[in-house]
Structure formats: structure tokens, C-alpha cells
């Protein structure tokens, strides 16, 4: 078990039961020297500072860090929702394109459309990408089956519980069959027990599909349970400070959270971010005008 400092990127290898790496081929997702600045009237905030990250096909990467460290900014920039000031995002060696459907995002607060039924919510990506066909409904239905949400096709979101809504949120992303699945603290708003159930179900789904996932979380045990590799970010400006290959065999389950090795991973990550978390908590208290993860609020 160890921390790889991010100065020696070349030596970093995904570990354990992650996807096998072919040294020759380009990684599935390549984030290269990415910087994002937000300009206000009288200052410029450097939210991300020269962030580089490679993710292999089928790899599950978790990103952790204190509030305001730019995790969400990183995810939105990868997705194409935010334009980087420098650097690039590549998928299979070519520039990532929002319209191509390289990525799909699972949003933090499920962001379901209240006027669409569950099935129509899941179908949204297919509808918008003009791939609406007779098959769309079938595909949406299958995606709902995959997240174990049957018999709710024609319900409206407000009729569902928090956990069910997150299942729809997840189904909506996987139905478009993206190269990379981006997940922005998808379980943060769920209660602790529902969250653990959702974690195991996500593991199940991932085990079957082996999608490439970039997953943001505040829960360190969630990161260790899910990830092949945990990326630790630091704040002000947002940088990648370290990465930790998680060498715990798969399939994993909740009982492993009690495993001494598991606990050591969590402690290791906590040690890396503790200071900044404490500082960000103080920032919240002393500075009401605190910059959130997403200072853009654009459109």
C-alpha cells in the first residue's frame, strides 16, 4: 500500500484487480495539463492548476479532497460543461466532444425532470441526441432493470424515494452507453444505510459492464470500497496531490470496510487531506462568501 506522489506520473500504474494496462495504447481518458480559471470583476480564481490524469479502460477512479478543492470543476471540465483555460481532455487519443456522447454525468442532486416520467427521464439523453427510435424506450427500460427499478416506468419523480431517484439518475447516464461515466457525489444526499446499499449495487453494475468511471466523493470509505485508484486533490489552487492504488481484491462487499487493510487505506487518505478539510471547515465559518465547488453558475 502506498502513495504515489504526482511528480512521477510515468511510473504510476493501476494496480490490483483493475483493468490490465497495455503500455503501448493510449489510455481511454487522458486529462492533460488542465487549468481552469474563473474571472470575477476584480480577481481571477485559479480553480484547477495543471491537472493531469490518465484513466484506463474499465478503470474505476475516485477523486477525493476537501470542499472547494475543485473536484466538481474537474468533473465538469472533463464532461465539457466548463471550458479549460489551458490543457485538453482526450478520449481514446482524440479530443473529447460533448456532442459525441463520450461522457455521461450522474449529477449530485439527482436533477430529475419533474415533468417527465421515470422512463422519459432515463430516455432524455437518447431524445436529445436525436437517437429517439422505437428502441429508445426499450433501452431505457433495460437501464431501469439494471438499476433494479422495475414497475416504475410511468411514475413521476416526486413519487419516488431518494434512493429510487438516484437509481433513475444512474440509469439515465448508463443508457447512453458513454465511454466514461462521470459521477459527482451521487450518493451524498442519501441516508447512510441507503448509501451503502447503493454502493454495493453500483459495484454490481460496474462488475457486469466494466465501464470507465470517474467518481467524486466525500466519503473516504466509499472511495476505497469502489475504486481501483483514489486521486487525492489539494486546494487553492486545485491540484492533484497524490494517488493511491487500492489493492483490495474484487468483487468487494460492505464487510470489507471492517478489514484492517481497508481501514488503513482510509486512514492514509484522511491523513493526506485532514489539514485542508479542517481549514475548509474554518473557511466556511469565517467566510460566508465562500467559493463553492462551482463558482461558475454559468449559462
Amino acid at each position, binding site marked *: 500500500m502506498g502513495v504515489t506522489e504526482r511528480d512521477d506520473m510515468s511510473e504510476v500504474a493501476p494496480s490490483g484487480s483493475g483493468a490490465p494496462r497495455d503500455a503501448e495504447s493510449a489510455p481511454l481518458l487522458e486529462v492533460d495539463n488542465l487549468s481552469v480559471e474563473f474571472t470575477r470583476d476584480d480577481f481571477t480564481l485559479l480553480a484547477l492548476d495543471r491537472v493531469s490524469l490518465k484513466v484506463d479502460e474499465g478503470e474505476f477512479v475516485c477523486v477525493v479532497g476537501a470542499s472547494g478543492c475543485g473536484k466538481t470543476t474537474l468533473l*465538469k471540465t472533463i*464532461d*465539457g*460543461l466548463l471550458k479549460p483555460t489551458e490543457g485538453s481532455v482526450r478520449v481514446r487519443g482524440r479530443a473529447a466532444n*460533448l*456532442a*459525441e*456522447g463520450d*461522457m*455521461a*454525468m450522474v*449529477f449530485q*442532486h439527482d*436533477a430529475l*425532470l*419533474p*415533468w*417527465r416520467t421515470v422512463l422519459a427521464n432515463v430516455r*432524455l*439523453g437518447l*431524445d*436529445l*441526441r436525436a437517437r429517439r427510435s422505437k428502441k429508445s424506450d426499450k433501452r431505457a427500460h433495460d437501464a431501469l432493470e439494471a438499476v433494479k427499478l422495475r414497475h416504475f416506468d410511468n411514475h*413521476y*419523480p*416526486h*413519487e419516488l424515494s431518494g434512493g429510487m431517484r438516484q437509481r433513475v439518475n444512474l440509469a439515465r447516464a448508463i443508457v*447512453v452507453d458513454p465511454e466514461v461515466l462521470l459521477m459527482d457525489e451521487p450518493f451524498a444526499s442519501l441516508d447512510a444505510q441507503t448509501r451503502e446499499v447503493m454502493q454495493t449495487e453500483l459495484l454490481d453494475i460496474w462488475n457486469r459492464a466494466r465501464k470507465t468511471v470517474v467518481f467524486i466523493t466525500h466519503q473516504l470509505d466509499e472511495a476505497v470500497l469502489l475504486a481501483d485508484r483514489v486521486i487525492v486533490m489539494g486546494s487553492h489552487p486545485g491540484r492533484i496531490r497524490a494517488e493511491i492504488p487500492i489493492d483490495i481484491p474484487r468483487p468487494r462487499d460492505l464487510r470489507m470496510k471492517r478489514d484492517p487493510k481497508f481501514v488503513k487505506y482510509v486512514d492514509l487518505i484522511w491523513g493526506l487531506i485532514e489539514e485542508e478539510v479542517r481549514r475548509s471547515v474554518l473557511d466556511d465559518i469565517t467566510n460566508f462568501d465562500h467559493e463553492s465547488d462551482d463558482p461558475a*453558475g454559468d*449559462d
Partner: protein
Amino acid sequence: MDRTSEADGSETEQGRSVGAPGMPSAIFYDDDDLVPRPAITRRPPLTRGKRFRQRLRLRRNRPILSITVFLVTWQLFSDFYVNRPIFLTGPIQVVQELFVQAQEGTLWLDMTVSATEFFKGFSVGLVVGILLGMALGTSRRFKSYADPIITGFYATPLIALAPLFILWFGIGERKTVVLVFLLVILPVAINTDVGIRATDAVHVELARSFGASRLQLFTAIRFPTSIPFMIAGIRMGIARGLIGVVVGEFFGSREGMGYRILLSSQYFNNAGVLAGVLMFAVAGVILVLIFERFERRVAPWRYEDD
């Protein structure tokens, strides 16, 4: 505390403790002597009297009850307290008056004239209002130009212009239609604008993450968000449009329910005035009811409970 540490499978006063010595243990409260109780008990069927009273209290019966009470109070008030038909007649006399008007043939004629004026003005006002609201809601520039004018007109009692409308549009149907149109367009436009602006930024982000175009952002996100607001605006438009019909017909008309009200009042025919007012009230209620039906079809996600 004493009991929990007793982890040797022994019986205690309250329960049975299980577990290996020195390990955490639980005390189970499975008392065999306790008669089990069901978690759910069905309520016994109601007696006839109770059932009748309950049906009376049903939500859909409430309007009937309140209207009946209102009409009876009105009748008693006019017959026994006011007691002078020139000042106030009761609902029975009003209905009699309607029968008279129907026999004379004016009722049907007046109603068709008024209804035609209303629907002409309302439908055009609705379409233009929604389009105007969409323009306001999507273009910041257009809104900053148009907003002061629209707010100004909305705050102005436009019906005060009715006398001038005779000058501009002549005697007859057209001036009433224009008045209805002007009264309907503004609440519809303003509410549509507010609705489009109520769009959740997260929903916009969601659609963009699926590569939505600007047009798609409008059709898939902004427009559906605005529907409930638009509906509230249309409701206001119905009420204001009916006012437009009455006031429009007060000035320079020879037919229509508004003209009939004016004429009756000049003859001190109290029942005639109230008959006209009643017809407008009924028309308003019917229009809103029809509209609520329609609302449930276009915005079903807002009506889950009944």
C-alpha cells in the same frame, strides 16, 4: 447493565441472552406468553347514517353546499331584509328574468355576441401573450427594452381606455375584441416570462451534458418548466378577458350581455342587471372548469393526489 454482561445463554427476567462469553451479546425480547397483535386493523364498515354524513363531507360536494347556502342567504336577505326589488332581487326573480329574456330571444343573441367577442380577443391574446412571454424569457436584451413598457401597461387600468376605443375602432364588436385582447395578453406574457426564468440551472446543465442545442434547451427544459406559470397566467387572462367584454359592451354597443346589463340598469330592472352578472359568473366558472381539465392533461405531474 448486569444482564448484558451475562453472555452465557442463560435466561433472564426479560429475555434470553445469547453469545459466547466475553463477546458482545444481545438480549432478545421474544416473550412467548404475549398474545400477538396484528400491525394493521381494518376499520369496521360505517353505519348508513355515518356513511351519508361522510359523503356529504366529500370534497366534490363542498361547492354544491356552499353555493346552496349562498343562494338561500341571498334570497332571504333580499326578500326579508332589503324587501325592495329596485335595490336587490333574489335569485328566484333573477332566474325568472332569464326565462323572460330567453322567450324574447335576446338572451341567446346576447350570449353569442359576448362569447364571440371573448373568444376572438382571448385566443389571439393567448397566442401573442405566450409568444411575447417566450421572447421576454429567452432574450435578456429584449426584456430590458420591453420590461418598463409592459410593466407600465400591466399596472394601468386599461379598461379606462374603453371610451377612446369607440373613437378608434368604431361602434360594434371590434373595440370589445381589442379590449379583451389587451387585457389577456399581459398576464399571460408576464407569467410565461417568469416561468421560463424559473428554469433550474441544474436542469440546463444536465441537458447540456447530453449535448443539447440552444433550441433543445428551450424545448426540453425551459418550456416545460414554464407550463405551470403559463397556466396561472391564462387563468388570470380568463377573468380579465370577461371584464373586458362587459366594459367593452358598456360603451357603444347595441347587443351583448354587457349592453343588456347597462340597458336593464337604465330601466331600474334590478333582476335584469343581476341576470347579466350571473351569466358572466357562470361563464367564468365554466371556463375555469374546462381549463382545469386541460391543465391536468398538459401538466399531469402536478396532480398526483386525486
